[in-house]
């Protein structure tokens, strides 16, 4: 049965544009059903703002099923809020108490500049994928899909990494603003598979170095794993580091340059 959550106070980051200075604004939500999702609560607030002639709060969201990775939001200092393994869009108001004060901020990371209010620009993630997050396999002429058997544990481990939704919570949660969990998830997805072996070392070198151009360095805090809505393990970072070290030897690029 539905209950209502009463008297919420929201402190929300408002910022007119990338170069504008931002500030917290306080809003109150007098009552909302506990069946509502967190983003539906913001929808209701936005409808209220529009009816008052005020500009709605900008925030990124799309599928509202926890899979597209568009939604973000630091909620009370936690990326995607208090629920383990839950993207913001899957967080429901039944997890909050009446009278609560909720602080809502955008992802804070130098590689993710704020676009407006709670929306940030995560295209640095695309640059990492473009540099090597793929298996070169032009359309047409692929061999029969069952030609290379892949042991189930290998396929499962690749899938565990491939579940990354690219939301950026790992970066937002990291005190260094590092993207190691995101990058390593893609690297381990592809480097674990037989199809990924041909480009294994080229891939890891290119992706790690593109990552380093945009993001901070990893110092093993583990905040990324705790924030990840898909529970991707930081084990993948160890795998990435191992492959990167090997790549530096195998590719010999760095060695020959020195």
């Amino acid at each position: 049965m539905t209950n209502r959550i009463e008297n919420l106070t929201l402190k929300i980051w408002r910022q007119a544009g990338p170069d504008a200075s931002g500030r917290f604004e306080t809003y109150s939500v007098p009552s909302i059903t506990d069946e509502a999702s967190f983003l539906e609560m913001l929808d209701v607030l936005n409808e209220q703002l529009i009816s008052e002639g005020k500009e709605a709060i900008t925030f990124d969201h799309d599928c509202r099923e926890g899979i597209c990775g568009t939604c973000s939001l630091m909620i009370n200092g936690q990326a995607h809020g208090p629920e383990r393994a839950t993207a913001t869009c899957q967080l429901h108001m039944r997890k909050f108490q009446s009278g609560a004060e909720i602080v809502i901020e955008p992802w804070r990371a130098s590689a993710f500049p704020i676009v407006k209010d709670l929306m940030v620009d995560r295209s640095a993630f695309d640059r990492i994928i473009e540099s090597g997050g793929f298996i070169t396999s032009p359309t047409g002429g692929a061999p029969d899909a069952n030609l290379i058997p892949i042991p189930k544990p290998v396929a499962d481990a690749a899938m565990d990494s491939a579940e990354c939704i690219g939301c950026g919570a790992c970066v937002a949660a990291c005190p260094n603003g590092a993207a190691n969990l995101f990058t390593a998830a893609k690297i381990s997805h592809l480097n674990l598979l037989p199809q990924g072996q041909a480009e294994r070392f080229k891939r890891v070198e290119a992706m790690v170095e593109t990552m380093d151009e945009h993001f901070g360095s990893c110092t093993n805090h583990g905040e990324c794993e705790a924030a990840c809505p898909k529970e991707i393990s930081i084990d993948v970072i160890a795998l990435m580091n191992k492959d990167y070290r090997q790549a530096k030897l195998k590719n010999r690029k760095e060695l020959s340059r020195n």
Partner: protein
Amino acid sequence: MSPTLDSKIPAGPVQDAWRSYKSDVKLVAPNNKRKFKVIVVGTGLAGASAAASLAELGYQVDAFTFHDSPRRAHSIAAQGGINAAKNYQGDGDSVHRLFYDTIKGGDFRAREGNVHRLAEVSVNIIDQMVAQGVPFAREYGGLLDNRSFGGAQVSRTFYARGQTGQQLLLGAYQQLARQIGLGNVRLFNRTELVDVVTVDGRCAGIVVRDLMTGEFASHSAHAVVLATGGYGNVFFLSTNAMACNVTAAWRAHRKGALFANPCFTQIHPTCIPQSDETQSKLTLMSESLRNDGRVWVPKNPDDNRAADQIPEEDRDYILERLYPSYGNLAPRDISSRAAKRSVDSGRGVGPLKNGVYLDFSDAINRLGRHVVEERYGNLFEMYERIAGENPYDVPMRIYPASHYTMGGVWVDYELMTTVPGLYAAGEANFSDHGANRLGASALMQGLADGYFVLPYTIGNYLAPMLNKPVPGTDHPAFKEAENAARARFQGYMNVKGTRSPDWFHRELGKIIWDYCGMERTQQGLEKALSELPALYEEFKKDLRVTGDAQSLNQTLEKAGRVDDFFQLGMLMCRDALERNESCGGHFRAEFQTDDGEALRDDVNFAHVAAWEWTGDPTASVRHTEELEFNTVHLATRSYK
């Protein structure tokens, strides 16, 4: 303009059509491909795969998405799987059987030629995606695993846990990213199409709005591909992502592309029922759940016992009773109607009595909880997060919701619309699913169009244009379209009424759901057609968009999309009113058999209805393309 609807399906037996087309198609030499520019709008499965493949071939490609990244497209949310006629299970599958199932599943309202090609290339898709590293589910021996889906008696569905769409989209996205990194594709993100530009009857390019700055810009090209998805959000509440819209297809329609079968919309049987008034969207629970879940309602409408307190003899397993040979795997349209009738008869379950049970207790007893968890674990978690109930302990509650649209922009065999040089791919076109789409076929069609059809057919159009000039963005037609778009968006700002775009969208959705949803009647559709223009007038007079037009403004974006949904909504109702038969997702209460099944009229309606824009959304002109069935014999669709 009097459009001729020539499907251009090669003559001869349907199983030879695609091969003979490919043998005769005009080619563009590798060193000439770089002289052609192709615009691809949308970066879901169809768009990303088309953009990547065309760029690999050597064309200059500009790709547009309104998302921050191509990876966000709604293809990502598809859960259950992708069909392919691999027959890896040795259970009697074949290209012909997939073709037949799809034609029958579509209630004989799709073209044989297109569907046969789809079944043929389905096997290439799996090869392609595995080569790209899509981690499909595997058996312990390392071979690919399959599951079954509604409307089929073989196991031909490949899957990656409950996230098949995600893995396929990321595969296509990664191929696109590779081409972007190589400089072969220019990506325009957070950029939305606001108009299609034609010059001398040919598509010359598009006008877009930069969502970050509000600026309008023109892009010219030799060919334009719309891979912009379906229009299920016309219902407001649907399983589509929040930003899914009809704008690109609709703007193309207004520029001469006929819009086919808009009333063919799919209501998916297994979604989580609406729980409250603030609800912004509905969430799908994968059809694959029906492999092991049993759909039932209490026999007695006044039975208020908890599900596990209701003994077997007081339960009605509706699908197993009505459709014994397919049981819980009856197709979507049929399953949806069965659920609706149960709820309408007062036997709905849950606090609002607006759902039916999908019960896994038998499967858990038979297979053990760990097997059920392995198969559906992430779906069960998602259900628990949303509904607040644990489906291992209590049955899921489900109810139908708008999910997919079979109708769309009319295209011929080459996926070209009635505007030369303008193509539509994936859910945006109408071509392959007839009046009802089978589960796990949307991913198949998106990738077939993008990877294996467009790269051939676009060359056939471009080859004769070699070294001939095409209009650039300095052509007056572009300036005119830009100015019109600018004025349109400024117009939304200037109304300064009292209601938000979402308010109008919600009201629009209610009318469409009530009168053009799972069951339609002449009276209801006529009522909708009198209410919609009135509400649309109110939209024009009472809309309120706050903020400004010169920076990022999600309220303004929404206003443009709702405007187009209104116009489409009127066309949908007219199409439903004119189609005096029941078929697939289009169920007209006046046309049903004695036991309540859809009553098709093949004499008068074995055709595609393709609508022409006239400038007045209530006065579009209906054209028809007759459907020929030479391979499959028209038969009453039975799943009993």
